[in-house]
């Protein structure tokens, strides 16, 4: 009994303290807002926002509501986070493996890359890519095409726009391809377990992914038109590329800075993961006759991943939260659109900041849940 009380009291005190602190802040805010004649409520979300946003994944203009503006900002944040995570993973894995390369030049280049990019503050890097690097790009009228049909200019990266007809049929064909790949993989595994034969699964998979959509094109079910960027004159000296798709330079700079910065940390996670596997594993695998590729794929990586995933999750979370630095270079993310312009136009500081905080919390927790699920999936399954 005595012991039980002893263990409960500190917890109870902590709970009381937390309740008291939250209560104090709530009452304090309420009193101050009342005194200054500020009312509280989320009704403003249905009002017309009356401001435009430079870049949006969904259809939006100022005649839509603040709730829609929030969605625009949220989607832009998710876009930059997803792109950042993809690129930082690719660069990170390459650099991480390169740091262990037996080649002196590759090893040291990778080491220098890591030391340089992780030791310069991220905001500076964002400013560098936006103001120094991207700003050095030519004006639209002086731009030489890149890959024939795309134009990288100071006003944005103009690429051809794809106009699909019956886009859903294409999606179905890809889904069909994926389902058949799953079947073939299962069959291949069974074949190997029972008869020891190996099927070229990768080759078949890629083939299916190409053949299925190709059929829909050949039969004319799906049609694709390409709208190329065309130079358009706005005034005597001002040009843009119309018709095509324009990727704003703000997005380019942000994705570049975020992925190059976060990749250094991912690279270190990868290196730690690979070095964490004892040498004996590699030697044992080699002695049963596996090729170097098979050793990496079947022996080293499955074990290394268990070490790599948890710290890499942290880096993904950091990247997502760091994407809020977008506001510094006019990329319309959640912070700029919602906690910036919308906050200013409505003056609802407490409401908007609370929504924004909850949103980032939800985003971070979702990434955490996803990565924990993956971590569990690849963890050692003890029978």
């Amino acid at each position, binding site marked *: 009994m005595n012991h039980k009380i002893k263990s409960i009291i500190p917890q*109870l005190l902590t709970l*009381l303290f937390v*309740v*008291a602190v939250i*209560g*104090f802040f709530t*009452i304090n805010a309420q*009193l*101050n*807002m009342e*005194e*200054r*004649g*500020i009312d509280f409520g989320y009704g403003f979300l249905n009002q017309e926002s*009356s*401001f*435009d*946003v*430079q870049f949006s994944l969904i259809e939006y*203009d*100022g005649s839509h509501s603040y709730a829609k503006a929030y969605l625009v900002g949220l989607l832009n944040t998710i876009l930059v986070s997803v792109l950042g995570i993809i690129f930082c993973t690719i660069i990170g894995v390459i650099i991480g493996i390169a740091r262990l390369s037996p080649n002196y030049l590759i090893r040291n280049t990778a080491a220098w890359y890591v030391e340089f990019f992780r030791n310069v503050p991220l905001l500076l890097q964002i400013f560098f890519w936006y*103001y120094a690097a991207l*700003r050095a790009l030519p*004006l639209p009228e002086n731009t030489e095409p890149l890959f024939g049909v795309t134009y990288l200019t*100071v*006003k944005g990266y103009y690429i051809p726009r794809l106009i699909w007809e019956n886009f859903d049929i294409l999606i179905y064909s890809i889904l069909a391809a994926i389902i058949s790949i799953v079947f073939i993989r299962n069959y291949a595994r069974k074949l190997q377990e029972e008869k020891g034969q190996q099927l070229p699964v990768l080759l078949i998979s890629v083939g299916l992914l190409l053949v299925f959509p190709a059929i829909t094109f050949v039969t004319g079910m799906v049609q694709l038109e390409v709208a190329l960027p065309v130079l*358009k004159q*706005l*005034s*005597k*000296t*001002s040009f*843009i590329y*119309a018709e095509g798709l324009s990727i704003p*330079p*703000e997005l380019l700079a942000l994705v570049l800075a975020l992925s190059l910065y976060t990749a250094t940390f991912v690279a270190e996670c990868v290196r730690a993961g690979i070095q964490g596997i004892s040498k004996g594993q590699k030697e044992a695998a080699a002695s049963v006759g596996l090729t170097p590729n098979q050793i990496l794929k079947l022996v080293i990586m499955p074990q290394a991943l268990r070490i790599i995933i948890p710290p890499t999750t942290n880096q993904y979370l950091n990247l997502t939260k760091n994407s809020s630095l977008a*506001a*510094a*270079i*006019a990329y*319309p993310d959640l912070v*700029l659109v919602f906690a*910036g*312009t919308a*906050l*200013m*136009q*409505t*003056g*609802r*500081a407490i409401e908007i900041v609370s929504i924004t905080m909850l949103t980032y919390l939800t985003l971070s927790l979702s990434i955490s849940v996803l990565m924990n699920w993956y971590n569990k999936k690849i963890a050692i399954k003890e029978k």
Partner: protein
Amino acid sequence: MLRTLKTLMYLLTSIALLVSFETGAFAAKKSKTLKKTQKMGFVRCGVSQGLPGFSNADASGNWTGVDVDLCRAVAAATLGDSGKVKFFPLSAKERFTALTSGEIDVLSRNTTWTLSRDADIGLTFVGVNFYDGQGFMVRKSSGITSVNQFKAGVSACTNLGTTTELNMRDFFNSKGIKYEPVTFEKADEVVAAYDAGRCDTYTTDKSGLAAQRIKLSKPNDHIVLPETISKEPLGPVVRQGDPVWEDIVRWSLNVMIEAEEYGITSANADSMKSSENPAVKRLVGAEGELGAAFGLDNDWSLRIIKQVGNYGESYKRNIADTGILPDRGPNQLWTKGGILYVPPAR
């Protein structure tokens, strides 16, 4: 557990009641903000992060500008020394939160007076110290000489969280032009982006365009288009809920404008005490008890005129002589063809 919670709630409610009672009692007697300001010994004034002519700091941290002078006037009135001001450089996005949260007591930051800002978010506008309107700046080489020559696809750089963002939409929508808004938090970032060619036009208040043009790498390559697309009455703002403080700031501004009207300057203010005109004598504190209503002494207005000068002096020193807008336009006294007209100080 439930009992403890209940007790706690009682405790918190009684504390809350006590606090609210106390603040109510103070406000009735004297301005809480004035009392706090006099106790601290300086006026906390929110200004821009650098807008020549309005609020701009030089290399050694001395602030100048017409917005700055308003804060200096309030300091001269309430503390007796126009130098006792602490300046808080704020972005457009931060300014109102800084004021409503109590970080500053006067916001004098080329802020447009609008209905929703005045009525909605706990602010009170006390007057207008600059009548402005939104305009566009473009490169001379573009050949554009009127806003009617803008075409679909035009990109416009501007500041985040301003009325500019809203006016720009109204304007381009009314013309049926699709445009690309590029909004930055800091004015310097807007200027840098426009300078680098990211945008075809830079839009903000015309006074702001004139002031920021100096910061461009080649100011003479750019022109401000003649059209004005909105009304932008800029003025000082205070927090809602302290009517006496609101009056002090309002009349500090009015005194500066009225002093110009009666020809009282920083140089001749003392000698004006023996003027024949009772309106002049009231302004320099030689007649009447004008300060008493605010809880100030009778020389408050004299100090403003002596230490800061009248509105005309402030305008000349900050905006005309610096070459930003030599022509006073609407910001001329009503007696001289402008629209500056303030209620009489009596």
